């Protein structure tokens, strides 16, 4: 078992503080199940903690590395539980609108969710990495193993498709 110094634990704790909500949001967007998202998020952080010595800065930022681990864990979970049907279904309302929410906001949210359902799985993955994970295009490229230009082009294509789906639905 690796010996863990206090400094290392603090560094990892800082990474956790900085990324936890975004990692959870990204994982939840993929697995579409609150309980599974919690399991996968915890698993991803634990896996990252145990493998933190394998992180190499020259291969990208620590966040990209962490999201790569989270993505693999989420995809493994999807495969294991054969969640394909769930992925294609309507997303779970993980943040239920409060009474103060405007009707317009709720409507727009429903519209976007319906439009999301028309995207391919890898397009939803890109959207989730960008808007739930809050990653830069360079970090997305690192996570998905492609060039930054390619990641930007694909992201733009997915956004354009989503906007068109929203227009068609409205």
């Amino acid at each position, binding site marked *: *078992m690796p010996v863990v110094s206090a400094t290392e*634990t603090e560094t990892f704790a800082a990474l956790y503080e900085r990324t936890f909500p975004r990692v959870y949001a990204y994982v939840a*967007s993929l697995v579409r199940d609150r309980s599974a998202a*919690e399991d996968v998020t*915890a698993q991803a952080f634990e896996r990252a903690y145990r493998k933190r010595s394998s992180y190499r800065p020259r291969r990208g930022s620590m966040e990209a590395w962490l999201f790569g681990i989270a993505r693999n864990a989420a*995809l493994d979970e999807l495969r294991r539980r054969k969640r*394909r049907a769930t992925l294609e279904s309507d997303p779970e309302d993980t943040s239920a609108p409060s009474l103060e929410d405007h009707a317009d906001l709720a409507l727009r949210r429903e519209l976007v969710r319906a439009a999301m359902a028309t995207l391919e*799985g890898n397009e939803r993955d890109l959207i989730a990495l960008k808007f*739930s994970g809050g990653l830069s295009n360079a970090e997305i490229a690192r996570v998905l193993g492609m060039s930054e230009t390619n990641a930007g082009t694909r992201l733009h294509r997915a*956004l354009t498709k989503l906007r068109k789906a929203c227009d068609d639905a409205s």
Partner: protein
Amino acid sequence: MTHPEDTATIERDLRAVNAALSGGAPTHDDPTARELQELALALQADSPVPDRTFAHELGARVEAGFAAEPGARSSRFRLPRLNLLPVAGVAAPLLLIVAVVFALGGPPSGGGGNDEETSSGDSGGGGGAEVLDGGGVAAAPEAPAGRSSSSAEGALAAPPADAPGFAPAQRQRRIERSIAMTLTAPDEEIPALADGVNRVAARNGGFVLSSELDTGDGGSTGSYELRIPSGRLQAALRGLAGLGTVSSQSQNGQDVTRDFVTAADRLEAARAERRSLLRRLEEADTDEASEALRVRLDLVAGEINGLRSQLRELRLRTDYAIVSVDLIGEEGDSGSGGAGGAFDDAVGDAKNLLVGFAGVLIRVLAVAIPLSLIAGLGWLVTGATRRRRRESALA
């Protein structure tokens, strides 16, 4: 391929999206870019939010360094989880290569046969005729313990099944063997070496058929032709190798079993015919018939004598191995001639050592490089397969 204008649009839109995400509000003048900004903000706002209890629990686990939970099996004693796919991906080609290497190399066997150069060896068939059991492949006999390596060490064995002289029904093989050996020693030691050759031949029940020794100013040389009983060949070769440095050695084996069997059968038939002729001669009642039978008996007697002689010669050739020993004197010291000689020896030894090491290294690399390439390829393929299988969850 993306059109340059498209590229500009993409870059503009992506910049606008990033600006909206940073600023929290749509700001772009272009309606399309603005729409994308609004969409980006909606997507960001719609991101799932973690439960506070879960966040608190996970935060505590991070602070504790993911220590083992009570009742859970300690990770210290957990067996490493094996991912069988990459293991199998790498192991399968490795096993294949090992199998191919073994199949191509094959186990060492006693090959050889008629007129085929082989190395020293002796089947140890007693003091009489050289015999090998069954006509099959004989096991490789022990090589002679020479002071240095010979040029062709290995095994002398029965010839292959399709070789001339092969008599499949015969279990007792008759092999004619000849060995050529070159011994080197310092010039001044050649006479003693020659004496040693004589002693080795006598000690093993053999004899010197011919010998030649020249100890002139141009260097000492000698040449011996020995006959050694086949059953003592191994011991004799060991003794000869112990006399000097074996600079080369080769062996030749020829299966003459068929010749032997044929001659023996013909002799038996000739004897039977002779007996028959003698009986008929006793019963002959005319002079003409008796004369004709006597003529025939003379012919058969000649044939019997010829066959006996042929069999005797074959026995001699197979009962005794021919051992040719060349003695070559070397100028210089005998190992105690001064620092220069010792230095030359050391350089020679070092050179031999390096050559041997290079040979081993080349063999190792010849196996290791293809193995590494295949293992690397297997690793890449299994990695790609695993990635594709993972990605299939998104398809």
